[in-house]
């Protein structure tokens, strides 16, 4: 038995381009499945967003229970060190292409928790973020606007945070290991 391919080699780059890529992006932008993980307080506004009043399903978005089927992870607000570890694991289990949406002021520069010993200050040191939605907490309309913008970026092929994560994995890993002291996670060596 050889070594597991998934663990040791970087995923192959997509080689096709042109019209196929365009169709791909068009389809991807219109069915974004969001992994159901309420990492922080912003999760309370995700519920109205995804239920009857604001109804994000109009835009092809819905909640899904497992990370393997999801395209988007929403980091809803501040992240504690303990949750960051779980978010990284969830993110790495998701299938590419995958996108990160950060809600609120806290993941940008710490927000009101800038002096807290347990909440991280900048999320983009640890994960590649595609869309920032500001506000504390962002209203459902703001979240929808953010997702609309994400769809436009995917349509244009510009939402490539997941590629950045593969290319600069060492840098991201270094940052992650700096704050997660006891690294007991499966290591993806690509």
């Amino acid at each position, binding site marked *: 038995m050889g070594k597991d391919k998934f663990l040791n080699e970087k995923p192959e780059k997509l080689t096709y381009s042109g019209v196929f890529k365009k169709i791909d992006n068009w389809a991807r932008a219109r069915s974004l499945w969001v*992994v*159901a*993980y*309420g*990492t*922080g*307080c912003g*999760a*309370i*506004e995700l*519920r*109205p967003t995804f*239920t*009857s*009043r604001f109804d994000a399903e109009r835009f092809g978005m819905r*909640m899904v*229970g497992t*990370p393997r089927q999801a395209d988007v992870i929403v980091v809803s607000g*501040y992240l*504690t060190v*303990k*949750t960051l570890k*779980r978010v990284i694991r*969830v993110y790495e289990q998701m299938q590419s292409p995958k996108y990160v949406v950060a809600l609120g002021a806290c993941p940008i520069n710490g927000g*009101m*928790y800038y*002096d*807290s*010993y*347990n*909440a991280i200050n900048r999320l983009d040191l640890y994960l590649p973020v595609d869309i920032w939605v500001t506000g*504390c*907490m962002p*209203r459902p309309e703001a979240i929808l606007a953010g997702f609309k913008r994400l769809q436009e970026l995917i349509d244009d092929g510009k939402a490539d945070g997941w590629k950045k994560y593969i290319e600069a994995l060492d840098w991201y890993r270094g940052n992650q290991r700096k704050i997660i002291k006891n690294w007991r996670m499966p290591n993806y060596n690509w």
Partner: protein
Amino acid sequence: MSTEEVRLFIGPQHPGVTGNMSIEVLLKGDTITWAKTHIGYLHRAFEKLMERRIFIKSFPLVCRICVPESDTNEENLARGLEELADIEIPERAKWIRTLVLELSRLQMFIMWYGGIAGSMGLSTPVQWGIGDRDYILDLFEELTGGRVYHIYILPGGVRKDLPEGFEERVLKTMDLIERRLPEYDELIMDNAVEQKRLKGLAPIPKEWVEEMGITGPVARACGFPYDVRKNSPYEAYDKLDFDVITEDGCDVWSMLLVRRREIDLSIKLIREIVSKMPKGEFLTRLPNVLYWEIPKGETYVKSEATRGEFGYYIFTDGSGKPRRVHVKGPSFIHGITLLERLLVGQNIADVAPILVALQICPPEMER
């Protein structure tokens, strides 16, 4: 090997848990033989941060302690500081606070009523519950400017007076919600599956209630008339006319009944508050809040949240910042001490309804 026990982690990324927490269980077949709650995923060190901030700056922090029901926190902290600094607040402020608290309880109960159905896979009431809750959030938005976090209750009263015509809109919304409730009942209460699964589920021994400090609807479902609004009235609750709701089943079904009746009670109380709302000032003059110093002292204030007794243990040391504010969330006991014992012997499929029935709110456990 069929009798071997399986270790399973439920959460933190799991649609069935009520927030960012996780439960570790040992399974024998379908039955749970051991359970442990893991918390700490939402620990933002509020109590430490409050030590570094002046009193008035603590208010944007405390409303984030329990996200769906933020006003209880503000009211508790404001009342505690008023008691320590010896400030009397105007009568109208008390009534406005009571109105806000009761509205906040009502929106949480409606969301919960949908949520208990959702925890068993009945997803229509979830959509309704969150949709109908939005009507109350609209009222909050008109009153305070924010949907979820209000920062409306401050020491000395409330931030703004009620807008013109607000009372009528409150009453209109109450009529609307009352009209919608029979539809919920038809789907949830008259549902054979719900009845079969919830009746007799997870019975709590009666002696646990006093021993463990179980409060709120969970205690009331065990026949204990424990309601902070009645036992130690705060704000304007002593001028309102209501009885404590109790059921005698001790199981999840009784908790459902208690909360269903609490919705009716909340609507009734809101109508009563609106009809009795006095005229007058809504805010007393405080000293300059930037240099506000409170003499040394300690006090424990509590109020009735939807989940149980919510307490604030406040210490001041004569400076402009609190020495310590210890927040006692009801979920701390429900989520750790009670849940770990209650889950033993239950079916793995019933974990989600039990979690929702105890209404565990992780951010208030770890602050």
